[in-house]
């Protein structure tokens, strides 16, 4: 911006303010495309937030399902150790229930008489989600869960 003081022939002075003309076009060129960048950035952030929410819900649902699978498999193993049901062995019953819940038994230990744990028909089962789960498309390790069950006291 330029400020000039001009004096005419009669000695009268006039103050004139002149905006810088030569930079105006260059500033406009520098800002050209800024709105596009902002739009792309906001859209990308929103898409990332949507993807994060989707991944969270898928993983949380799978973890919940695997926890249920472990709990129900341990319950089935404990029940079988108590002589309930028609399964051949406690861990076979646990594997059957886990398979019906789209999970596989990773570890299974049963203490029918309570010799080790002191609790009758104590079962400890670790299960892992199989590829049949809806979260299988995610490049993440499969969910694992463990559960204990025993005879009702």
């Amino acid at each position, binding site marked *: 911006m330029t400020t000039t003081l001009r004096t005419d022939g009669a000695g009268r002075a006039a103050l004139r303010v002149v905006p810088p003309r030569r930079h105006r076009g260059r500033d406009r060129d520098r800002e050209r495309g800024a*709105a596009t960048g*902002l*739009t792309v950035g*906001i*859209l990308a952030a*929103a*898409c990332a*937030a*949507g993807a994060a*929410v*989707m991944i*969270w*819900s*898928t993983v*949380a*649902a799978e973890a*919940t*399902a695997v*926890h*249920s*699978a472990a*709990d*129900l498999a341990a*319950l*089935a193993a404990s*029940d079988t150790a108590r002589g*309930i*049901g*028609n*399964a051949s062995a406690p861990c076979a*019953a646990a594997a*059957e*229930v886990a398979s*019906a*819940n789209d999970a596989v038994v990773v570890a299974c230990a049963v203490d029918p008489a309570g010799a080790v744990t002191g609790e009758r028909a104590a079962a400890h089962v670790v299960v892992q989600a199989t590829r049949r789960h809806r979260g299988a498309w995610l490049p993440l390790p499969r969910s694992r869960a463990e559960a204990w069950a025993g005879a009702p006291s």
Partner: protein
Amino acid sequence: MLLPTVLALLLVVAGLGVVGSAQVRVQQAAGAAARELARGAAPPDLATTAGHGATASTRSSGGVAVVTVTRRVELLGFGGLGVTVKGSAAARPEKSEP
């Protein structure tokens, strides 16, 4: 044009969150119902565990009972826009038929 698009995307993200939490909730409800079924106890109240409008169905095959909980999630309060979420859990009932 930018602000309506951002608003629509935020609504989509919020909708995904609502559907995701409902999915987790029905899965928990199915697990709880299957557990009570395995123990021979009365099933828990579905409206409490899975939310209003949830329905449960049970089918048995080979000594294993599968409980499926279904619920329709209405998005943004509109009647026509909704997603049905489903969760299921399988258990071996104590009093299963041989």
